[in-house]
């Protein structure tokens, strides 16, 4: 379904158990489109990604991936259908080596080991090390690489810059920009760091209390700090 949106959420309400975090949320991403999602802590950004991956309870609404309804599919079927997920906690397999962490997720497609190691040269140097021997930045690169090894059509990244030193964030940003420009993937980037978010995607979504309160050009938000303040309650990071 070439004309179908890469990812579409229609009137999605979801949460954990009986608790509803996302309320009637709509989101539509075209094929190859990149979007950043920002907002204060606890507004539902991570829940949004978790809901797309099938890790929450869906109370209502529809979710489709490349035109196919995935709302009732378990997480592993969603991953097989083309979703890649980079979780906030990275969740590297500690006893597997870098190389094994990557190959364990491998599926046929353009992304293979050599292409991942080319995107993240740091990992190439560390591929014989175990997951628990990596720095935070390396773990983040590995988490992204592992998601790419599944050859997804839509990549969900949850705060990849969180807890990393500025110099590592810059290196990670360079890799992410390469990924955006060269891979043709549809990417949803959840990010607290507005500088990183605006630099990554032309479109930004702002969330508040489980709803989308702004959906527009990143440049508009970047240029209007008063608007940004009103939407997320803090100045630009």
């Amino acid at each position, binding site marked *: 379904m070439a004309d179908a949106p890469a990812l579409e959420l229609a009137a999605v309400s979801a949460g954990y158990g009986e608790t509803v975090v996302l309320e009637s949320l709509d989101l539509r991403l075209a094929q190859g489109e990149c979007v950043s999602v920002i907002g204060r802590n606890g507004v539902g950004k991570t829940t949004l990604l978790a809901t797309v991956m099938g890790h929450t309870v869906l109370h209502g609404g529809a979710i489709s991936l490349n035109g196919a309804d995935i709302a009732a599919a378990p997480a*592993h079927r969603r991953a*097989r259908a083309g979703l890649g997920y980079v979780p906030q906690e990275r969740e590297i397999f500690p006893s597997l080596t870098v190389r094994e962490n990557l190959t*364990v997720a491998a599926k046929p497609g353009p992304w293979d080991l050599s292409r991942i190691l080319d995107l993240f040269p740091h990992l190439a140097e560390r591929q*014989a090390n175990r997951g628990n021997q990596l720095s935070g930045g390396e773990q983040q690169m590995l988490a992204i690489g592992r998601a790419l090894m599944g050859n997804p059509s839509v990549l969900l990244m949850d705060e990849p810059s969180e807890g990393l030193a500025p110099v590592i964030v810059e290196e990670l940003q360079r890799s992410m920009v390469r990924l955006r420009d060269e891979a043709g993937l549809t990417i949803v980037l959840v990010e607290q760091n507005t500088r990183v978010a605006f630099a990554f995607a032309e479109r930004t979504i702002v969330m508040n209390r489980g709803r989308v309160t702004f959906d527009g050009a990143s440049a508009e938000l970047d240029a209007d700090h008063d608007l940004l303040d009103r939407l997320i309650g803090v100045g630009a990071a």
Partner: protein
Amino acid sequence: MGAPPDISAAAAFMERRHRWRPAEALPWLAAVAAFFLFPDYTAFGTQVLIMILFALSLDLIMGYAGIVTLGHAAYFGAGAYAAGMLSAHLGWGEPLTGLMIAGLTAAAVGFVSGVVLLRYHGLTLLMLTLATAIMLQELANVQEEITGGFDGLLGISIDPIFGLFENDLWGRTYYWYALIVLFALFLIARRIVYSPFGQSLSGIRENVGRMHAIGSPVHRRLVTVYTISAGMAGIAGGLFAQSNAFVTLDVLSFARSGAVLIMLILGGTGRLYGAFVGATVYMVLEDELAKLSPEFWEFGIGLLLVLTVLFARRGLLGLIEDLGARFGKAKP
């Protein structure tokens, strides 16, 4: 884009990691040496080799896939009864096909129970594995016309191996038979744990949610390794039945499930050779302590288990590795 990274050194390291290491010859050399050094103990040695194979089968599911079970004797017993009944009731005494049927029977039981049991986790799974073995044991008890019930299965007669090598009074033939079967199945287990399938099992053990999220069919993989493990345990049980020419309800007992678990914890889980160390130490200690005190030998095993859990969390093999590293030696 910069220059392509030089990955040759790391790639070579990865190749080496899966390659046979010299230290891996040690247990096999020790097994061969034991045959010549202790010629009066070959029948005992055969039982040690059988328990190593049983513990190895448990390591596949517990050490690598993280499936904790208190009922692994179900598959050991299924294999033992299959091999025993084949001879006692059908007169089929050919040992190798007997072992194959023992393995396939246990694998079939493992597959059917695994499909159901492995949908559960933690304490629920632990209790279900325990219940499965108890139910099988009671089934064997009730069906005494077929299994011999409480009195055991008599009338097992095993043909010479390849029609040439008869089991002698000292169990020397069966020592080699068990060693060769153990080696063949060890090769399969080693290949499994170093394969992408084996890596995915480690992934499931460490973070099952993450494995779901990368599209891994977790339940199918768990059932697959559970079935393989059950088949291996069944072959161990088949060897037990053939070497003893006698099967009792004990092969399905909770005590046997517990003993193999203790062996693996003693030796170290998730390292293949932990089964060798744990089963050997357990069996030798059991034998020696029983000579000292026939009634209270389990106290010594219990004490060793307490010490291992407290001071050698990675088992005796892990302790040896740690001591080796401390004294500047390379890890085996």
